[in-house]
């Protein structure tokens, strides 16, 4: 296996690096990596750059195999990887380009509360959230899905949840794709996926998933922050979860389907986890239909979790969530493939954009944005680690022109799970964070050790790169007050 030093990088400017197309004979396009010198150093020890070059082999890939500054080693695709393919030029769809946790994503909820109003009740707030929202290994949700409802959830996503009384129309308007992708195909979903998903709606999960109560600690753009309802010292809430076992199973099922399709369609890829099928093929269409079902499940899941969290705030603060002004700022997908229009060589094309650990970042004026935000651009939510910061950014025209309307998605791991546990040996991460005013509750010390702040890149560095490269703009920064983890 090659190390990073062997992957040639041509510096374009302080934030852009190219892997030349001639690095490997099968590359159809060059690689383009957004990073500064400091972040590039963290890439030296794994295979992420090699994976950027591998993705460039995909049939029908357009312009570049892209990598965001939070890139790290994944399966087939790097996490932080973006690839657009042209279905009319034999372009493929790859389940590995979306990932196991289909539509893993994040939402930001604002409140009318200030830090000094929440601080005295913080412990009870976090404990009540922890006891109300199922999280961790093997936890079931209270919202069970009957056979009849299965179809509604996978075709209507968060819209179905809102129709049951768990949210508002405004929540849907402030969710990417309105909380549901059209043309999800329930018939393409295996029984095993339904079985894995049936008790997991409204559950957070484990790993890097979390619910965080935060305070806005810096405003970069007063006007935009105001438009998104964000101000200094305001308390916000961030929810990070995905499609749970339902999505994992769909990815797994279709990695097998596309693995077999490689021979059928004479596609050669340098890594079996890049298995793919032409967008227009039967296998490709079935995956797209199933992936959309999982994306809808994930939006339904985050809507359910937000509902549960709103009821907790009501209980703890003795006011209705409406009175607490707990509206959804925005919800974005981090792991998804979408069909979007772009101008390529002067011609309008509908491309299949894979975002694997990357966030859509559409500019002001884009027709896919809700009316109340259209003039300002799409809110982009970037979670960081539990000790430092998270960000609210906004999409830009530069992103639309250069990265298929995409920017980074988070901090990105820098320490393996074992390293993190070893690093935390003899320490209590919970106590260290409590000294900084952050209450953390999780199912186990081990998972908290694995998710400790030092295990991640500093999200501030990642956001600096996308801001200076112009593929998103800083609006506001939050810091954690309390976190629940799986």
């Amino acid at each position, binding site marked *: 296996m090659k190390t990073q030093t062997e992957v040639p990088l041509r510096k374009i400017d302080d934030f852009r690096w190219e892997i030349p197309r001639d690095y490997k004979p099968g590359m159809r396009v060059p690689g383009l990596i957004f990073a500064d010198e400091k972040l590039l150093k963290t890439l030296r020890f794994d295979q992420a750059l090699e994976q950027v070059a591998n993705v460039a082999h995909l049939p029908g890939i357009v312009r570049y195999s892209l990598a965001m500054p939070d890139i790290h080693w994944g*399966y087939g695709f790097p996490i932080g990887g973006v690839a657009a393919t042209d279905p009319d030029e034999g372009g493929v769809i790859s389940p590995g380009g979306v990932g196991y946790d289909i539509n893993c994503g994040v939402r930001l909820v604002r409140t009318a509360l200030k830090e000094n109003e929440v601080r005295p009740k913080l412990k009870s707030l976090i404990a009540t959230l922890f006891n109300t929202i199922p999280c961790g290994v*093997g936890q079931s949700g209270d919202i069970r899905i009957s056979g009849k409802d299965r179809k509604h959830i996978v075709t209507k996503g968060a819209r179905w949840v809102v129709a049951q009384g768990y949210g508002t129309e405004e929540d849907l308007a402030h969710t990417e794709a309105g909380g549901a992708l059209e043309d999800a195909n329930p018939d393409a979903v295996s029984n095993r996926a339904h079985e894995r998903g049936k008790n997991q709606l409204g559950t957070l999960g*484990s790993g890097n998933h979390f619910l965080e109560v935060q305070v806005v600690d810096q405003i970069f753009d007063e006007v935009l922050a105001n438009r998104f309802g964000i101000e200094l010292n305001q308390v916000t809430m961030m929810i990070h979860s995905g499609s749970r*076992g339902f999505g*994992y199973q769909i990815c797994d099922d279709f990695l097998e389907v596309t693995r077999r399709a490689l021979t059928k369609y004479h596609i050669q890829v340098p890594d*079996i986890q890049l298995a793919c099928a032409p967008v227009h093929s039967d296998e490709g269409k079935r995956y797209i239909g199933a992936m959309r079902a999982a994306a809808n499940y994930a939006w339904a899941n985050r809507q359910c979790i937000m509902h549960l969290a709103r009821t907790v705030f009501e209980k703890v603060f003795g006011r209705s969530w409406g009175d607490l002004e707990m509206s959804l700022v925005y919800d974005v997908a981090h792991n998804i493939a979408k069909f979007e229009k772009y101008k390529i060589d002067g011609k309008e094309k509908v491309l299949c954009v894979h975002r694997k650990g990357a966030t859509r970042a559409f500019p002001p004026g884009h027709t896919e944005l809700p009316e109340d935000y259209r003039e300002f651009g799409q809110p982009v939510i970037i979670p960081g680690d539990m000790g430092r910061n998270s960000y609210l950014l906004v999409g830009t025209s530069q992103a639309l022109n250069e990265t298929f309307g995409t920017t980074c998605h988070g901090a990105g791991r820098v320490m393996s799970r074992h390293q993190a546990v070893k690093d935390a040996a003899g320490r209590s991460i919970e106590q260290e964070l409590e000294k900084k005013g952050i209450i953390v509750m999780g199912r*186990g010390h081990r998972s908290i050790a694995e998710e400790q702040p030092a295990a991640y890149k500093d999200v501030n560095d990642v956001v600096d790169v996308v801001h200076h490269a112009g593929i998103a703009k800083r609006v506001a920064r939050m810091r954690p007050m309390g976190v629940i983890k799986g």
Partner: protein
Amino acid sequence: MTTTMTASPARGFKTFDHTADIGLEIWGDTFEAIYEESAKGLFSLMAKLSQVEPHETRTIELKEESGEELLMVWLKELLFIFDTEHLLLSQFQVVDITFNHLTAKVSGEKLDSAKHQLGREVKAVTRHLFEFKKTSSGFSARVILDI
């Protein structure tokens, strides 16, 4: 980096790092040992196996095109049982095996977060760097689990 090791040198498993995820290296003097040790490895990531008592038993029968595929499907099947039934498994016995066919008895108990110290949620068994081969002393396998 080695962090977990079972006692017997003839068979066992250890975990290794893979940035955001965890890999298992499994070795054994027999074909059966690879299946049994890999299953232990999988469940040791989710819970402390010494706390899991064998109250419930299931029989699993699988048929695949090759031993490699059989190992992959075996681990996926066990993960599916856990995810859908919340059954933590701690004992695994291969009853019958050929190169592409497996019958096994697996035992454990329902997950109880008051009793079991829980570990990580395994999302999937991946094909990334997956390997199952014959060695001079028996067999070895490697599999990476998405966490």
